[in-house]
């Protein structure tokens, strides 16, 4: 079936290092992708988004890369901090609709 998924369920990084969280999607009709961060006991929080007419978008300490050829999405976090520890979800959206399809998430652990 068509779905959004993640390669690594848990990622452990040293504080100060860069983190890369990966996501694969299978529906070539998806044209809009979003990354969310979810801390324990809280709701998901929007981080950054990218549309399919772009292959890279940068925010504050975060970069999202989109490779439509292999249907792959990644979130790069520069100089990872303890506050970045959370579960990260990618989500897909089609035709600017209202429905987001979330993957199952990757837990990021930041070692001091």
């Amino acid at each position: 079936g068509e779905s959004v998924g993640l390669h690594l369920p848990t990622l452990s990084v040293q504080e100060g290092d860069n983190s890369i969280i990966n996501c694969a999607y299978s529906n070539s009709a998806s044209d809009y992708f979003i990354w969310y961060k979810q801390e324990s006991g809280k709701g998901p929080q929007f981080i950054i988004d990218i549309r399919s007419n772009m292959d890279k978008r940068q925010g504050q300490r975060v970069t999202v890369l989109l490779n439509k050829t292999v249907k792959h999405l990644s979130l790069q976090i520069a100089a990872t901090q303890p506050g970045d520890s959370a579960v990260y979800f990618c989500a897909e959206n089609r035709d600017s609709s209202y429905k987001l399809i979330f993957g199952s998430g990757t837990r990021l652990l930041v070692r001091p």
Partner: protein
Amino acid sequence: GAGVSQTPSNKVTEKGKYVELRCDPISGHTALYWYRQSLGQGPEFLIYFQGTGAADDSGLPNDRFFAVRPEGSVSTLKIQRTERGDSAVYLCASSLTSGTGMLFFGEGSRLTVL
């Protein structure tokens, strides 16, 4: 408050009981969404409101689930004859308009059905 507010934060009920979960979206946000999140999973879409009407309820699992938004602001998710499989965190989100991936989520209502 400035964010999406959900009540109760925790609800424990017995199988077969009726529950209501409330969502107070960010003021001025016309779009409202309900998602359900099981342990270790990403949120799953349940229903979307644009204004007062349910524009898409295709994610509701069955007819025991119903949601309303009578005045275009506060929404209530209603679950009849609860089952143990209904146990999850129910997340509400709002956005300024539809067609955006920038949703503002509440902290969720954790429902436990014994």
